């Protein structure tokens, strides 16, 4: 493995920032496949594990203290689950896998109950600003998902990449994984079972939406 290859730099930046290497990014995906074992050892020195998901994409799970990590905020997780569901709708093949952002907003507002939307995207907000806050939170959520290579955004449309299937982890266990499955998901898939309380506070600033944890 050559550490001065351009592909190494691209892969390293994506992985350290919590991103995913999908097949759609063919150049770096191919490079990673060819150097998987070396990279796995490389990141092990940082206390992190380079994982390949059964769906093919790569990502990093952090267990040591040398790399920082964060938890995805509740709106991002809900949005990710919703997009993972839409990605399983056969209608998506009609548009070659692309979805309109406006259509997503419409679908999410018509599919999910107002209470859940408010609780997830605009907790503790006054009634008159809830709708705006939900739209804003979905917009920010899409940006975070795009930054982490869960989706690819082009203008006013986007398409889910393979990594979106990380949001279907619990659904694979019918939303009720047993203890062994939970441990396995925590170690291998980076799932954190985070029992949020109803009055949990979220940061005002969108840039600080993510809960940061220092390992």
């Amino acid at each position, binding site marked *: 493995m050559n550490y001065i290859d351009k592909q190494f730099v691209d892969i390293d930046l994506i992985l350290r920032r919590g991103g995913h290497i999908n097949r759609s990014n063919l150049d770096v995906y191919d490079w990673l496949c060819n150097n998987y074992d070396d990279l796995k050892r490389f990141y092990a020195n940082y206390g992190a594990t380079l994982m390949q998901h059964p769906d093919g994409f790569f990502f990093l799970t952090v267990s040591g203290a040398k790399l920082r990590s964060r938890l995805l905020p509740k709106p991002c997780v809900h949005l990710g689950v919703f997009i993972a569901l839409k990605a399983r709708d056969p209608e998506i093949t009609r548009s070659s*896998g692309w979805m309109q952002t406006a259509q997503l907003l419409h679908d999410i507002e018509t599919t999910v109950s107002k209470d859940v939307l408010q609780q997830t995207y605009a907790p503790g907000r006054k009634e008159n600003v809830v709708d705006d806050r939900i739209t804003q939170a979905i917009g920010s959520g899409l940006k975070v998902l795009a930054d982490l290579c869960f989706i690819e955004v082009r203008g006013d449309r986007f398409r889910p990449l393979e990594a979106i299937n990380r949001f279907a982890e619990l659904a694979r266990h019918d939303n009720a994984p047993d203890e062994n499955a939970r441990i396995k998901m925590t170690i291998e898939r980076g799932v954190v079972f985070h029992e949020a309380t109803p009055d949990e506070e979220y940061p005002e600033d969108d840039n600080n939406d993510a809960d940061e944890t220092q390992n």
Partner: protein
Amino acid sequence: MEQPLSFAEIVQPILAEERRLELLPRDIALLATIKDEIERSPDGLLTIPYSAIQGLSGRIDLLDVKDPQKAERRMSESMTRLLNAGCLTKAEIARLRISADAEYQLTSLGESVAEWHVAQSRFSGEPLTAIFKAFINQLTRIVEDAEKSVTPDDWHRNVIPLMQHALRDMLVSIHRHQNALDRRHAEMRAFIPTLLTANSEDSIGQCEEQLAQVIKTIEDLQDAVLSSTSMAFSLIDRIADLAKPHAPNGFEPVYDDLVRRLQSTGAWITQRAIDWMDHHSVVHTFLRTIIRVDRQRRVTDALKRSIAEAPSWSLEVADEPHFCRMRDDIEKADHSKPPPRAAKKRGERTFEKIPPDAIPELLIRYLNDDLDKGEARASSLFAAVLPSMSNQLRVAAYFPWLIGQMVQAGKLDSGARDWQRITPLIEIEELRVTKK
């Protein structure tokens, strides 16, 4: 040889006779079925009776029923429009009174309209490579003719018209193919989700068959782009090389048009190939990763349930901060601080001695002295202190203050208010106080 018509000769009769070609989809459908009926006739007749047209109209109604009560009216309106447009004409010589006995025949316009629309709506199945093969054959023959042409006249007679003809033929075929291909792709995009939604083994099998057809189309498109267009370009260039020594008039525009059309066709084919490949890839991935894996749709159903409530889990992702980017363009020329100045030693400090203002004290003293004598006047007080003042104009600054002091110290004499000149420049209103 027939003289070409002038512009006015072409336009005027059409406008004067108010010629128009207004046809509705139903009219075209009727026209096409009339043509088909005439062609199928075993007697080889060129006409069709009104009753047969009624039968055809009734069959169209079965497919496009809007109001069954107005079938006769719809048909008569269609017939009127077709007759007015010159697509259909009455076949009898003597006028017949009973319309049901009338016979109709297609005009050449009617035949062409019907033929064109039928051809447009039918996917010929003729692959793009076949169209290009025919085009390349034509070009090869033109190259042979061009090699034999030694004078500009030969070029005008044997080459240029053939090039125009070949171009027109190719464009018509390509245009038909483009429309058909786009329509077919749209149909397939709409059809595949219905198959995938059905989720039965049969529907998945059908879907895979559709994908196999897509692969054939993609191969056809790629072959057309990679081999056929490059072959066509090389032949066209060969013709252009042969034309150079003769420089026939009118060759350049035809050549440019041919190249331009071929380039745009190539670009269109490339774009369509990408679209078909994208679609194929998405459907194939969908089949492989979702339909085949989650046959019972358990994961999909679980996802549906999970979006109905706020998530109670999250994903942990690495979050190393971004590298600082050292931008040269915002670097300022000089950021260095000036060197610190040495602290001055206490002994080296210089002081300027400012004498205290003695005038107010003098004024108070003179005021008290004068009051002890019985009275005090502002003019006399200022007159006494003027020699001690560095700037006599400061009288104006002291006067309001002195008024307050005099009023407090003595009793005001309101009668003495005459103006007194105390310096050549300053004149003040007199103020006199007496001892209280």
